[in-house]
């Protein structure tokens, strides 16, 4: 996990190094030009006159000490900017992932009992939809439908600024109301994949001997399905959900931009517009951190499901 982060940091540095122009150029540009001497001064100040490997080492050490540089646009440390936005993205990514797993598994179990029925068709159609529809487009359609034409949900943001007082629950429901559409949008890409996998894996397990034994010993249908069959068919679904984490984070970037959700995605969008490279690189590191956290969680869940698995 640490290795992954180290590689991202090195990759960041390589890209910065290979890209045309450097920090000195950017600063000179915002200052409205600088002569050769000032440029050399700036490069020296930022250590850009040092040999390649020393620069790389310095960069890695700085990042390890949580110094991601200064945002040109906000004039704040990148780390502070990201920490301010990180929880919102975390909330969106994990709630969408949990929702799509929940709905996906539910639908998968249901479809498995009726392999050629309507629910299986529905699952197949939705997984086609999840692949073909750009997620921001789905978001815009939902926004148009449920915020403009039938105004049930707020158009953008994460909280209603008019609500100042009130207890925990008032704020909780406020955030939930804002979260609902972005969460549904993001979950809409993935739940069909999960239910397809769950259906296939349930069908396989339902034919196994131990399920027949469970039925023969007179357990109720519910017990057989949920306690015996489902528990044994979950691991491929969970594994796939773990592999999907990076796609969920990528999707969150787009969904956040549609709904102006105040997370890393909108920050990334703004930093592209304002050419704020240090912020963008910091976001890349933190979103990779989020994916590795998700993977760790997946491994722990798998272990809880099946004690034979060793991490």
């Amino acid at each position, binding site marked *: 996990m640490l290795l992954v982060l180290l590689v991202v940091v090195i990759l960041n540095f390589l890209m910065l190094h290979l890209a045309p122009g450097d920090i000195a150029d950017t600063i000179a540009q915002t200052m409205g030009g600088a002569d050769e001497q000032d440029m050399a001064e700036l490069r020296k100040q930022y250590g850009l006159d040092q040999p390649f490997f020393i620069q790389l080492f310095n960069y890695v050490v700085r990042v390890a000490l949580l110094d991601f540089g200064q945002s040109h646009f906000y004039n704040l440390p990148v780390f502070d900017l990201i920490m301010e936005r990180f929880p919102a993205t975390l909330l969106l990514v994990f709630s969408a992932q949990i929702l799509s797993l929940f709905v996906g598994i539910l639908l998968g179990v249901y479809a498995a009992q009726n392999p050629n029925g309507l629910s299986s068709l529905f699952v197949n159609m939705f997984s086609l939809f999840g692949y073909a*529809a750009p997620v921001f487009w789905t978001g*815009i359609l939902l926004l148009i439908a449920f915020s403009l034409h039938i105004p049930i949900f707020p158009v953008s943001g994460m909280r209603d600024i008019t609500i100042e007082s009130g207890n925990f629950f008032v704020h909780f429901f406020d955030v939930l109301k804002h979260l609902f559409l972005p969460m549904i949008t993001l979950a809409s890409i993935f739940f069909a994949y999960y239910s397809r996998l769950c259906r296939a894996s349930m069908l396989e397990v339902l034919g196994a001997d131990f399920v027949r034994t469970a039925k023969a010993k007179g357990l109720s249908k519910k017990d057989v399905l949920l306690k015996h069959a489902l528990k044994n068919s979950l691991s491929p679904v969970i594994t796939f959900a773990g592999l999907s984490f990076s796609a969920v984070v990528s999707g969150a970037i787009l969904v956040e931009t549609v709904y102006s959700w105040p997370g890393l995605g909108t920050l990334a969008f703004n930093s592209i517009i304002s*050419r704020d490279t240090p912020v963008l690189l910091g976001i890349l590191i933190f979103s990779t951190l989020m*994916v590795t956290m998700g993977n760790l969680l997946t491994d722990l869940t798998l272990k809880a499901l099946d004690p034979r698995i060793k991490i």
Partner: protein
Amino acid sequence: MLENEEIEEPTIKPVKEIFLTFFKSYSAVTGLIILIGIAVMGFIGPLFYPTDPFDMVWMPFSPPGTDGFLLGTDYLGRDILSQIINGARVSIAIGFSAALVSCFIGVGIGSFAGFYGGWVEETLMRLTEFFQVLPTLLFAMVIVALFGSSVLSITLAIGAVSWASVARITRSEFLRIKELDFVLASRASGSNNLALIFRVILPNAAAPIIVQSALLVGAAITFEAGLAFLGLSDPNVISWGQVIGSNRIYILDATYTVTIPGIAIFITVLAISLVGDGLNDALNPKLRSR
């Protein structure tokens, strides 16, 4: 696609049979026809509908159907129909070439990992895992933001971040095939490693790689649209993503400027996915119940 002399080898189905299975499937043929239709529209369409997609021809935000503009005009009064027609060319070109780039990288890495094993495999698969953990959209955003938003850099960025699935599939196919008798026979008759990789094993591993690449084409088209939605598109050419990206701030006033190119993307990617499923069934019937 596959050469005739290799028909005798175990995992390849005859070309004729592949075609027959493919064309027997209604959904695959429908997908193919739609896809060809869109490509023809993109490449020949401008001859019949010569309005320049960059020309401001009418009042901004004329809704579809008014004043003779079938799909309306965008925020600068440019004809959206013309943008859709001309955008098809760029979107499809980016989709296919980005998928080709991923395919090259993925096949290269996967085949070497699968063939050589040992530390080569360990290193290459670690690299592949790393690219699976990386949030690909953000990584591509960084590349495009740093190296400029030209069609070339966007294509390379998409290709460079989406090869992991191809590499994994190629590797697992290589692991399976390299122990088969005909490979051993070929090795015994003195083929060198490169010949074994590219002439003997790769053609037999082609089926799942082709299917995965077909899916990558669709993914690359939505990927490009996503980048463009965030404002990272080549300002000199029109692509569907670019239409969405440039109109995105007006979505609440003129939703059709974003929904129409979205529908174009949706239909195209859906068609590609149908073709991909058809290819999957035709090339490898065992995989049918994925």
